[in-house]
């Protein structure tokens, strides 16, 4: 239960809700966690464990996608700066 919650919080802190590619998985993780809580209430603990594992997996994917998006944006910016510098330096 805690690992799913931690993964979701990690995804939120990574800004997954602001990255289009990651938003879906963060949303899935949150819904799956809610479903797991409901399964626990129904005393379906085995199914609840798998649902939490799915939630954790989705949240971790959201984190990875957010991280990749940020890294790609930074790389693009750095590359553009180099190209700009080279074009200005050549003049």
């Amino acid at each position, binding site marked *: 239960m805690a690992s799913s919650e931690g993964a979701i919080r990690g995804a939120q802190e990574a800004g997954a809700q602001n990255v289009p590619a990651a938003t879906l998985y963060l949303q899935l993780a949150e819904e799956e966690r809610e479903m797991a809580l409901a399964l626990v209430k129904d005393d379906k603990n085995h199914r609840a464990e*798998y649902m939490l594992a*799915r939630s954790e997996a989705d949240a971790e*994917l959201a984190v990875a996608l957010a991280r990749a998006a940020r890294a*790609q944006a930074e790389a693009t910016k750095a*590359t553009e700066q180099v190209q700009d510098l080279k074009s200005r330096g050549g003049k």
Partner: protein
Amino acid sequence: MSVAKFWIALPLSALLACGAHLAPKELVDARAAYDHAAASNAPRLVPAELHVARESLDLAERKFADDPDSQDTVDSAYIAMRKAQRAEALGNAAAASASKTFAEHEQTKTQQAIIENQQGKLQKTESQLAQERDTLAKERDSLAKQKQMTEEERQKRIEAEKKAQDAMDALSKSLAVKADTRGTVITLSGGVLFATGQATILPGAQAQLNQVADALKTQAEHHFTIEGHTDNQGTDAINNDLSNRRANAVRDYLVVRGVAAAAITAQGVGSTQPVADNKTTEGRAMNRRVEIIVDRAVTARN
């Protein structure tokens, strides 16, 4: 329907439609996701994460082998798919991070190159400026020296001219000195210089000639013409010869006294240029003379 319920419901319906031993869609997707990740940056940049995905897929495969129709198999396959996608995303993040690092390194190198290029240009400009400053300084020194030399020469010329003028003024007190179109003419009486019919300078004339020599030496930038003149007594041949010899005798004496030989031309003109009437004794005496002409023109002899 929520997103999660959709992902759960879809594989269940697929399983029911396709038969018990057909791999669930989640497992098929998990296999594809793993293959996709294995073909991405993941093996090279995040091999540990890809290994986790592989183990997750293996677990799903075992679940499928043990119980193909179970929800555990579906969930395990779902999780395996996400692990594979995560590995690929982390691989992409690592590749982007490396790309960023490379770009930053390139940026540093480019900045360094630009700085070095600008420093090179600056050094070249400074070198050119230093050369120009040096050239200007030399030209200034040269001009100052030229100015100094010109001033010194001007002062020397003024002093020489004053000395020459003073000498000529002193000479004019004891000898006939006049200016005409040829220059300054010093006239020496033939009777004082020579015995009748002779071209040898009399001892009594040497004082006068010494004074003339001293004056001429102050006229270093001038040329001198010495002309011998006679009266009209005797033949022209005799008078010409006599006047010529007398002119040269005076020339030789002046040279001995230190006047530059190259500065003196001597010639006899006989009786052709009288200054007085040859019919009288006094006139003839005046016509027997030697004229030393300080030419008006200044030469560059010195």
